[in-house]
Structure formats: structure tokens, C-alpha cells
């Protein structure tokens, strides 16, 4: 692995993170009205109480001082206290992260596997009926908002057929342990993850297909055919591997976009993960929590992008050896 390349990427990621903290800080200072006021449901709250609260949340200081304070706390891993839950934001979020990771992990895995396979088939069979069918399906899937999928799935499979639960991560108060608990969670995962998967599949099919078509038009594919390489092997060894390269780059770019699906799915299925937390925080205008969630999303995107870059260096020898990405158009 090219150390300089990695170092450069780390530096870039760090700078991005720094900028993100600033945006994160700034946005929530733009809120019209008084966020502290919103914390009090009681209109009789006195000015003194509000002032005291401002001091408590450090909102009395000038902007720069607030930012420095914010960064100091961030460095200590403190994200503030949730207006709503009264608990440290870090703690609230930490509890939710594994659930979201589980959901998004499964969904992404299924979407990538199914999507790339179908996309590769479509690209491979370019112009055929199979291609048109897959293409039509994927564009349709891609056009349906995730939440609409969620609602349709819920109406069909949780309400009319009642095969799956209506939402949540486990059967409430079931007392399940061990394998039964795992199955219980898996059962709750099916619908939300499918609502994400269906949308991503569409996306991955489209990306893989166009990438595949692009690769298949490259001279080295003709070379491989001229060598007498079996078609299946051309697909797996020559085409797919090269088709993956832009796919990985695009995945990196799209990660920022993908946080959306998780919010929609978690909201529809009240999956108690980060997305739902974020939505609740928005609905309740719980600014410290919102800030924390946004930061976590942003950091996750940066980290995943970094991981994608590393993965890219593993797969593309040009990057591994030269430390420079070759522009794939």
C-alpha cells in the first residue's frame, strides 16, 4: 500500500471533518427563534431560568468562544446534553449506532450483491430482452422513494398478510434470549431492510450496468475474446473486476446520499436506530441531539469514503503502485 497516498487521504479526511464540525456548529446557530425557549414547555419560565440555561449550554458566550468550547468538548468526546432526553448525546447515539449499522450493513450487502449481479447480467446482455427487463425494473425501483416502498411493504406484509411485524427492532417485552432473540430481530429486519434494498438495487443495477457496458467496449475485452477466453471468465475476471473500479468510486460518492434511505426506512418502520433518532430530534427540535446525529452521519460518510479509497488501492494496481488514481472517465 502506498503510504503517501494513505497519508494524503487521511489529511484530506481530517480537514473535511474539521470543516464539518464548523458547519455543524454554524447551522444550529442559525435557528430562528430561541432554542432554549423551546426546551421549556411551560410559558411561565422566567428570564432568569432561560439565562441560566444559556449559561449551562454555553450559549451566552460570543460565537468564537462557543465554537472553541464546542471543539474542546468534542475533543473530549462530549456532544452536549440532549434537550429532550436529558442524557449525554454521545450516550444516546452510541446506543443506536449498532442497530443502524446492522440494518444498513445487511441492506447494503444484499443490494450490492443482488444489484451488481443483475447489473452485470444486464450490461453483459446489453440490448437484449433480459437487459431491457432488468433495466426497466431497476429504473422503476430507483424512482420509487424509499418511504413509499416501506409503506407498501408494510401495508402488504405487515397489515394485510401480517407475516412481519409493523415495526420496531424486536417483539416488545418478549423476554426472548439467545437464538430466539436473534431470529426475532431478523424478522423485524426483513421489511425495513427490503425497503432500503429495493431502492439501492435499482441504483446498483444502473451503475453496474453502465460501468459494465463501458468496460465491455474496451479493447482488452476484445483481446480476451481473441485469446479464446471463455465468456463466463471474461465476465468474471476481465469485465467485472474492471467494472468494480468505477462502482467503488461511485459508491464512495454516493455514501453521502445513502444516509437518506436509512432515515426513511427507520422512520417508516420505527426502527430505533440513528435515522429514527435523527428524525425524532428534528421533530422535537432537539438541537444538541440533532447536531450530534448530523456529526455522526458526516463522520461516518468521511470514514466510509476513506475506507472506499483504501479498498480502491487494494483493487486497482495502478493506485497501489503509483499512488495515483487513474481517471476512469
Amino acid at each position, binding site marked *: 500500500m502506498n503510504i503517501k497516498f494513505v497519508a494524503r487521504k487521511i489529511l484530506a479526511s481530517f480537514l473535511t471533518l474539521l*470543516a464539518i464540525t464548523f458547519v455543524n456548529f454554524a*447551522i444550529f446557530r442559525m435557528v430562528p427563534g430561541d432554542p432554549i425557549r423551546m426546551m421549556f414547555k411551560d410559558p411561565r419560565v422566567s428570564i432568569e431560568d432561560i439565562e441560566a440555561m444559556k449559561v449551562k449550554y454555553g450559549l451566552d458566550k460570543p460565537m468564537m468562544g462557543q465554537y472553541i468550547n464546542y471543539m474542546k468538548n468534542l475533543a473530549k468526546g462530549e456532544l452536549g446534553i440532549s434537550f429532550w432526553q436529558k442524557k449525554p448525546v454521545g450516550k444516546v447515539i452510541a446506543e443506536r449506532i449498532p442497530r443502524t449499522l446492522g440494518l444498513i450493513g445487511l441492506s447494503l450487502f444484499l443490494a450490492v450483491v443482488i444489484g451488481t449481479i443483475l447489473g452485470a447480467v444486464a450490461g453483459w446482455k446489453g440490448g437484449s430482452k433480459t437487459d431491457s427487463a432488468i433495466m426497466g425494473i431497476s429504473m422503476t425501483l430507483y*424512482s420509487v422513494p424509499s*418511504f413509499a416502498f416501506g409503506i407498501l411493504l408494510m401495508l402488504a406484509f405487515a397489515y394485510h398478510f401480517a407475516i412481519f411485524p409493523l415495526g420496531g427492532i424486536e417483539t416488545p417485552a418478549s423476554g426472548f434470549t439467545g437464538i430466539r432473540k436473534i431470529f426475532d430481530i431478523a424478522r423485524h429486519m426483513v421489511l425495513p431492510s427490503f425497503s432500503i434494498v429495493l431502492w439501492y438495487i435499482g441504483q446498483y443495477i444502473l451503475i453496474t450496468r453502465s460501468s459494465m457496458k463501458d468496460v465491455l467496449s474496451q479493447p482488452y475485452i476484445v483481446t480476451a475474446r481473441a485469446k479464446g477466453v471463455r465468456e463466463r471468465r471474461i465476465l468474471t475476471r476481465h469485465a467485472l473486476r474492471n467494472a468494480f473500479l468505477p462502482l467503488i468510486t461511485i459508491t464512495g460518492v454516493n455514501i453521502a446520499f445513502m*444516509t437518506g434511505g436509512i432515515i*426513511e426506512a427507520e422512520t417508516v418502520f420505527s426502527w430505533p436506530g440513528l435515522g429514527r433518532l435523527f428524525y425524532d430530534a428534528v421533530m422535537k427540535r432537539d438541537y444538541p441531539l440533532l447536531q450530534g446525529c448530523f456529526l455522526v452521519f458526516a463522520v461516518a460518510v468521511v470514514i466510509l469514503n476513506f475506507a472506499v479509497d483504501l479498498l480502491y488501492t487494494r483493487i486497482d494496481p495502478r493506485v497501489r503502485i503509483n499512488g495515483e488514481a487513474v481517471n476512469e472517465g
Partner: protein
Amino acid sequence: MRVNSYKLQKAGDFWAMFFSHRMGRTGFLIFCFFIFLALFAPILRTVPPEISGSADRILTGPDGISWLGTDDLARDVWSQVIFGSRVSLIIGFVTAIITVFTGTLVGLVAGFKGGIVDEILMRIVDFFMMLPHLPLMIVLAAVMGASIWNIVIVISIVSWPSTARLVRSQVLSLKERPFVEAIRCLGANDITMMMSEILPNVFPVMFAQGVLMVTETIYAESVLSFLGLGDPTTISWGTMLHFCFESGAMARSPWWVFPPIVCIVSLIISFSFLGTAVTDILTPGYKEKMGY
């Protein structure tokens, strides 16, 4: 003014290719359908979409009076759908124009000027691309308050960078094309080069990007509305859905929930199809492959 037969032939080829492209054709037809709805909404509607009906017509299914049924205030779903198409198309196009304009400007300047200007602009672009889109939109929408124009602004803020990046990469490769160097050699200044040599060649990318932006905007508007961050005082497909979810009567009034979803999906599909068709046609080699 003489008629340039070659230009005509070129345009003719484009349209012929476009209409022989199955997706292009389908997309265009759907698109025209919605344009038709939007343009003639006042004629096509049965009753004004925002006027509530009488109490005995609350949530009635499709019938002779209300072709698509009524909502929970006995308003006509059909009228709402056609007026909603106006909002969706307008915010789609406005956002597309804003993002494509901003993105192209940034990408053009960054790519053409290069050096430190490029570096700074691209760092900004990278940064914006790293921000999680929907969360950012949600946060901004929550902070800025619900209004259609805020949605336009919010979507524009997160969407311009991808155009900028794409345009820049195009400009970079165009800049290396000999004809740009040639025109410079012939004595053209920077503005001429950017505007008359590079920009016209970026149009296809801008167009494809614009189409993509329209779909993203329609999508985003529906998601934000679904999450309750849309503008509840404007009739759009998103707000129709929003009210439907909020009413609690979604499960029992399919005539209310499906039309906006179907409209959103088919308009997005039509734009995706249009985009795919145009991209295909403009792909080098397609013309030859199709035998033009």
C-alpha cells in the same frame, strides 16, 4: 438567412435517434403528459383544488364527480394532482437551473483556470459532497422553516457540487482537446475560449445533469414532505402524501395515497428515461452503432 441543411440533418438525426430510443420515447411521452397536465390544469380540473367540499363527501372513493376521489377535507384529489404537477415541475426545473448554473460556473472556472483556484473550489466541492445529503436537507429545512422556495434552496445547496465536479472533469478533458489550444493559438482570449469553445461542448453534460437534478428534486421534495418538513400550504404531490400520512387514514384511502406516488414515480422515471436516452445518444459511438 440561409437554411443550414447539415444543421437540420444533425438535429433531425438527434430526434430520430431520440425517438427510436425506446426509453427516450417513453420518457418524452410521460413528460409531455405531465407538461400538458401542468399547463392546462385550470381547464382540466373539476373544482379548485384547495376548496373543501361538503361534509358528506369526505374521503369518498373515485366517482363521477371526483374522478380520483376526495381527501379528508372533501377536496378533489384529481385537481390536487394536476395542480401538484405544476409545483413539482416548477421546483424541479428551478432547482435544476440553479444547480446546473452554479455547478457549471464553478466547474468551468475551476477546470479552466486550474491551479490554486481549482484547488480551492474543488476542496469546497469535495466538502459539500461529503456532507450527508438528506440529513443536511432535513436539518436545513427544519432550521429554515417549511416553504417551497426553502426546499429549492436546500436541494440546490446539496446538489450543485456533483454538477461542478462533472463539468470540471469535462472541462479538463476539453481543455486538452486540440481545438481549444488551436483557438488559443489563433488569438482568442480566455473568455472566448470558455464561452464559445468549451461551454457549448459541456452542454450535453449540463443537460444530463439538469435532468438528474429534476428527478432528485422531485424525490427530495416528496421525502421532505413525507417527513413533515415540506410546505403544508402549497399543494404538491409531496404535501398530498404528507396530509395523507398525517390523517391516519392512509390504509383506507388508496385513491388518495396512490395518485401522488404514481405521479412522483412516473415523472422521475420519465426523466430518468430522458436522461438515459440523451446520454446514450451522446455517447461516442452510439450514432455509428445505430447506423446514422
